[in-house]
C-alpha cells in the first residue's frame, strides 16, 4: 500500500481563531477515509487546504507526493471535488455541465464525450442528460456532481458532506455509489460528515475531529470496540447517584450528560438485572433503560463528554458571542 495523502502538522488560523490545529494523518491508496465531527470542527477547512483553496498557516500536506503549496495546479489535476454547497450551472443541461468541466480540465473532445456518457450511466442520469439541471432533484444533482468530479480521472476524490440535506432513501443510494466507486475504480476518497451512520457504513478509517484537533483515528470497528463491549443508557432524575453507586469491576466506563448516564460494559444482557436491582435497592428512580451496541456517537461522547449535536449547539453559541464581540 502506498500513501495517497500525507498530512503533517497542518494548521489554519483565522485571526485568533484556530480552525485546524496541527493535524497529521496518512491516507492509503484506495481507502475511504472519513473526517467525522460537528459543524465548525475544522473538517471543511481541512479539505479546503488539501484542495489548494486555502493556504495553510503552517504545516504541510501532499497528494500523491505533490506538495499542496508548491504545485497547486498539479494537485488540482489529480483531485476531484464535490463541494458541500451545490456548484452546478442550473441553466445548463447535465451534459453541458459535464462538457464544461471536461474542457476546463483540457480533455480531448472524444475522451470528454466517451467518459461523460460512461459516467452519466454510472450515476443513472443518462436518460436525463439533455435536461436543464434546474429540473433535477437534490439527489440527482449530487450524483451529477460526483460524476463531474470523476470526469478528469482524479486519483483522489474529495466529498464534503456528500449526503447533507438528502432524504434517507437517496442517502442510502448514494452510499452505495460511493462504495462501488472506491471498490471498482480504486479511487481514494476522503469525505467529511457529521453523520455517524455515514462514517460507520462507508469509511475504512475515521478520524474524529473536534475543535480543530484529531481526537481519535482508527477503523470504525476498532473505535467502537475501544469503548468496551456494550452500552447501557439510563435516563433518570438523579444521574449523580447512579454514577456514584455503580462501582462494580465490570463497569468499564461511566458517563453522565443531560440527565442520562451511559455505562460501558461487557455482556450487558446478563448484567442489566444486577444494575436494576442495585439501583432499586438504593431507591434511585429509573425513567428508562436501554442496551445497544456502541455507535460512533458513543465514541464521540466518550472522547469529548458531549454528543455531536450538543457540541454543534455550543459551537454556534461561541460563534455568536464571537461575532457580537467583533461588532462592538
Amino acid at each position, binding site marked *: 500500500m502506498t500513501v495517497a495523502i500525507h498530512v503533517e502538522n497542518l494548521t489554519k488560523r483565522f485571526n485568533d481563531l484556530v480552525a485546524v490545529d496541527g493535524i497529521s494523518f496518512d491516507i492509503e491508496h484506495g481507502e475511504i477515509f472519513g473526517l467525522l465531527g460537528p459543524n465548525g470542527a475544522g473538517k471543511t477547512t481541512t479539505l479546503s487546504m488539501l484542495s489548494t483553496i486555502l493556504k495553510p498557516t503552517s504545516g504541510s500536506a501532499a497528494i500523491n507526493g505533490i506538495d499542496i503549496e508548491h504545485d497547486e495546479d498539479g494537485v488540482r489535476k489529480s483531485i476531484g471535488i464535490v*463541494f458541500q454547497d451545490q456548484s452546478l450551472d442550473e*441553466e445548463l443541461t447535465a451534459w453541458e455541465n459535464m462538457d464544461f468541466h471536461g474542457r476546463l480540465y483540457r480533455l480531448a473532445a472524444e475522451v470528454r464525450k466517451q467518459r461523460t456518457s460512461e459516467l452519466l450511466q454510472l450515476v443513472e442520469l443518462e436518460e436525463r442528460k439533455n435536461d436543464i439541471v434546474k429540473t433535477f432533484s437534490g439527489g440527482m444533482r449530487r450524483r451529477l456532481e460526483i460524476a463531474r468530479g470523476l470526469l478528469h480521472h482524479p486519483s483522489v476524490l474529495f466529498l464534503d458532506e456528500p449526503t447533507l440535506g438528502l432524504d434517507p432513501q437517496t442517502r442510502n443510494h448514494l452510499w452505495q455509489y460511493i462504495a462501488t466507486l472506491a471498490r471498482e475504480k480504486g479511487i481514494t476518497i476522503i469525505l467529511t460528515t457529521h453523520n455517524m451512520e455515514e462514517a460507520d457504513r462507508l469509511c475504512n478509517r475515521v478520524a474524529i475531529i473536534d475543535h480543530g484537533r484529531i481526537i481519535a483515528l482508527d477503523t470504525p470497528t476498532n473505535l467502537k470496540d475501544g469503548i468496551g463491549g456494550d452500552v447501557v443508557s439510563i435516563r433518570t432524575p438523579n444521574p449523580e447517584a447512579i454514577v456514584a453507586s455503580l462501582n462494580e469491576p465490570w463497569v468499564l466506563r461511566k458517563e453522565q450528560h443531560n440527565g442520562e448516564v451511559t455505562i460501558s460494559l461487557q455482556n450487558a444482557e446478563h448484567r442489566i438485572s444486577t444494575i436494576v436491582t442495585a439501583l432499586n435497592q438504593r431507591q434511585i428512580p429509573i425513567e428508562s433503560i436501554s442496551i445497544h451496541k456502541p455507535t460512533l456517537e458513543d465514541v464521540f461522547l466518550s472522547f469529548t463528554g458531549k454528543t455531536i449535536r450538543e457540541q454543534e449547539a455550543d459551537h454556534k453559541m461561541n460563534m455568536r458571542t464571537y461575532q457580537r464581540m467583533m461588532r462592538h
Partner: protein
Amino acid sequence: MDIIYTIWLRNMKRYIRSKSRIIGSISMPLFFLVFLGFGLNSVVQLPGLGGNYIVFLIPGMVAMSVLFTSVFSGIQIIWDKQFGFLKETLVAPVSRLEIMLGQTLGGATIAVLQGFMILVLSVFIGLHLSSLTGFLIALGFMILIGISFTAFGIAIASRMEDMTGFQLIMNFVIFPIFGLSGALFPISSLPAWIAPITLLDPLTYGVEGIRYGLTGFSQINPLISFTVIGGFTLVMTVLGAFLFRKIKF
C-alpha cells in the same frame, strides 16, 4: 485560448436560453427611441444633423444597450458566487486571468449583439447606413464599450458579496455614466460647468464614436474618441483581472 473559449461558450449558451433577458434589455432602449425620438423630434433643434433628433438619438441608444448589457453581464459573477458555480471554475487547474478574459469576452459579445439588434431595428425608424466603413467603425466602438464595461462589472462583482449593492451601483454609477455621455443630447448644449464632466465620462467617447460611424457627425474627433475609449478598455481589463484574481472562495 481553449479555456477562454470554454467560459465564453458557457456565457453564450446561457444567453441564447434566456429569452426574457434578450427581450427585456432590448425593450428599454427601444422605448426610449420611440417615445423620446418621436416625441421630441419636432421640438428639438440640433446643429449639423438637419434637425433630425431620432437620428441623433439612435447611436446613443445603441451605446446604452451595450453599456447596460455589459455591466450586467460582468456583475453576473456574483450569481455564480452565490449559486456556487464560481467554485467549480476557480478550483480547476486554470489561471484566473483566462477565466476573467473568457467572462469579459462573453459579456462583451452578448452586449454587442444586443446593441446590434437596436441598430437593425433603427433602420426601420429613420437610420440610413451610408457606408460599410461607417458601420464597421460603429461596431468597433461598440466592441470597446462592451469589453470595458463588462470588465468594469467584473471588477465591481469581485468586491461585492451579494446583489444588495447592485441597485446602488446602477443608480449612482451606471446611470450617471449614461446620462452624462451625450447619448440623449449634444454635450455642447449643456451649461458650461457640466461640460467638463461629460468629457471625463469614458462613455462620451464611445457614443461620439458610434455616432460618427453611423451618421458621419460627431462633436469629438473620432481619433480622440478611439484613443480614450481604447485606453479605458485597457485600464478596465487590467483592473478587472487584478480584482478577480483576489476573489476568495
